[in-house]
């Protein structure tokens, strides 16, 4: 694998993890006072992280994974890792930019989020779901990397 592809794969992992960090910050600071600006920035950066992770990960997946990594996993001890985990991962990853974008826009437009309990809980629910999906995608990615050459 070339250094260019290695850097793409590392960037994909790094950006995805960064998105999780931003959203975790969003969750941790949600109920602190006078923090709307912080929440807007966290949700915006999370959205950007997932979009760029999508682009660099997609380039790596389309140009390298399919012909170089996939056959190794399928001929190894754990072909189900590609058939179940990778197939699921590559599609549920597509949810993340949309979920993060909704969170960003909802936070950007939400002046009185804290005053409305139902609304604030829905924001937390959306953020928690986005983090959970991103974490599961990360765990699946670790399993896929672990299955190469086994």
């Amino acid at each position: 694998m070339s250094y260019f592809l290695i850097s793409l794969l590392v960037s994909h992992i790094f950006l995805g993890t960064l998105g999780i960090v931003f959203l975790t910050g969003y969750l941790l600071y949600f109920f602190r006072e006078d923090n709307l600006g912080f929440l807007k920035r966290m949700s915006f950066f999370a959205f950007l992280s997932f979009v760029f992770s999508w682009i660099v990960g997609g380039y790596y997946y389309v140009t390298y994974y399919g012909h170089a990594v996939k056959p190794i996993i399928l001929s190894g001890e754990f072909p189900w890792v590609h058939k179940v985990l990778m197939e699921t991962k590559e599609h549920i990853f597509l949810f993340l930019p949309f979920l993060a974008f909704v969170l960003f826009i909802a936070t950007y437009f939400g002046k009185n989020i804290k005053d409305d309990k139902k609304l604030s809980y829905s924001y937390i629910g959306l953020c928690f779901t986005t983090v959970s999906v991103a974490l599961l995608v990360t765990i699946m990615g670790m399993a896929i990397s672990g299955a190469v050459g086994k």
Partner: protein
Amino acid sequence: MQDKYSILSAIIISSILTISVIVFLTIFGELNPVFKTWLTKTFSHHWIGKSIISVLVFLVLIPVFYVLRLKKISIAVLIWLLVAVANLSFGLLLAFFFFETYF
């Protein structure tokens, strides 16, 4: 304020439908090789096809739902609906690929 509400509700509904479209394209593509081949030939890779279609669906649906202005549904309910659809879609895709592999 009303305009912000309309934009936000349009974006949430578009996201819900976009995620549903991603799930549909994925499962339909697996069950119908002709469709998956069409995606691959048209967009160079089936995954790129699904990515481009999902973005287009999202961008087209926002103005549509903005014009429709669905005022009766609260933002909180729409967000919870999005959360439910995202979680169900995750489970559905995982279950689909599990069954496709083992049964």
